[in-house]
């Protein structure tokens, strides 16, 4: 067992973990942060995407021990429970989700994408989300949601 200290969605945890524990399992099983979900076992679906020290990662592809000392933001931490991050608002407004299972990863990836490129083209949005699979929406409204979120975030700045 290894001792780790991580901050997840604003709370700092100190835990003993087996080295083989994947970060996503640590979040779900050890911390009960079950908003982040597992959709595959080959790094394809991106449903488990979280921000680690501000950048998007697939939490199935990182060991919990490697997150020692990190600050992690999950879908449960992008806004306060009752609050809405502009990306969350835009996904609702543009019907960017149906079953909602890909949504935690899709929202986090969109936040990361807009952090890096606040005014993306449609092609840039599609490329930027290539690590996240959705089976319900055909991506049409997800693209719209990201475009809308870019507007909302731009508006919030001015």
């Amino acid at each position, binding site marked *: 067992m*290894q001792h780790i200290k991580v901050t997840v969605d604003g709370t700092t945890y100190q835990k003993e973990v*087996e*080295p*083989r524990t*994947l970060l996503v*399992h640590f979040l779900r099983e050890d911390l009960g942060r079950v908003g982040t979900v*597992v959709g595959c*076992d*080959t*790094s*394809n679906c*991106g449903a488990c*995407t979280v921000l680690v020290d501000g*950048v*998007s*990662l*697939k939490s*199935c*592809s*990182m*060991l919990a*021990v*490697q997150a*020692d000392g990190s600050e992690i933001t999950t879908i449960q931490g992008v806004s306060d429970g009752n609050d809405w991050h502009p990306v969350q608002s835009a996904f609702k407004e543009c019907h960017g989700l149906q079953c909602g299972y890909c949504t935690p990863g899709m929202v986090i*990836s969109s936040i*990361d*994408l807009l952090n890096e490129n606040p005014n993306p083209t449609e092609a840039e949005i599609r*490329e*930027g989300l*290539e*690590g*996240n*699979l959705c089976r319900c929406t055909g991506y049409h409204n997800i693209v719209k949601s990201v475009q809308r979120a870019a507007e909302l975030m731009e508006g919030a700045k001015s």
Partner: protein
Amino acid sequence: MIPVAFDYKKASSVEDALAALAEGGEDAKLMGGGQSLVPVLRLRLNAPSVVVDCSSIPELKGIKDEGGKIVIGAGTTHHAVMNDPAVKSSLKVLADATASVADPQIRHRGTLGGALAHSDPRADQPPVALALDAEFTIAGATGQRCVAAADFFQGPFETAVGPDEILVSIAFPKLDGWGGHYEKFNRAAQAWSIIGVAAAVRMEGGKIAEARIGLTNVGGTPHRASAVEQALVGASSIAEVEAASMYASDNLSPFADEDADVDYRLHLARVLTARSVAKAAGIS
């Protein structure tokens, strides 16, 4: 989805990592960004005794402009490589190929050195390293050594890096003023390349003066299309580029898989080489 149990050693320096590897013996496994290793562990396709984590070794990170060459620490992430101003201006083909690796999340964590040392025959950066005559610095118990790209890639998932060694950095000769392009051809955005062609071209008076071409997934190791490089010299039209690119299938013995049989791969090698060169050279 649950790996077999293993011990974990977080290395703080190259020396530290080498010592951990030596102590771990033959079942020790080195981890860079973990984007190739963790998936293998998850599916229980590998059961190391100890994982030596190199992702926090400061000396493996960073990109240095050393005049005639750019030296990239093996632990530098794809994301850092593709966004580095020096790489973008002097090694456009490397920036392009790196931007085509996997997806943003994986590029945030995966490293150039990890991908090159993993040497997946389908990977996008090995043909760039080969075509650009990169030099690999490898550390072992007896110190550091340098290996040329031509000697580095030895087979599928096999490189000059020994089981008790660590890839430290990769030096790329700068190609200032050269055009570059990486032509990736795959079935879907998430799929590996069926074929990828890295091309770097220096133009002089509207004609190709020098060219470097590397192909991926046409064999167990990346392939340098030397015959095409020679035939391209002097080319200025798309017809000439296409004619020279016919040599791209020379000396290839590709395998067949679900995406491409041998004939189709040989055909793609020729067609995509021409397209990659044309884009690198700005010839249409």
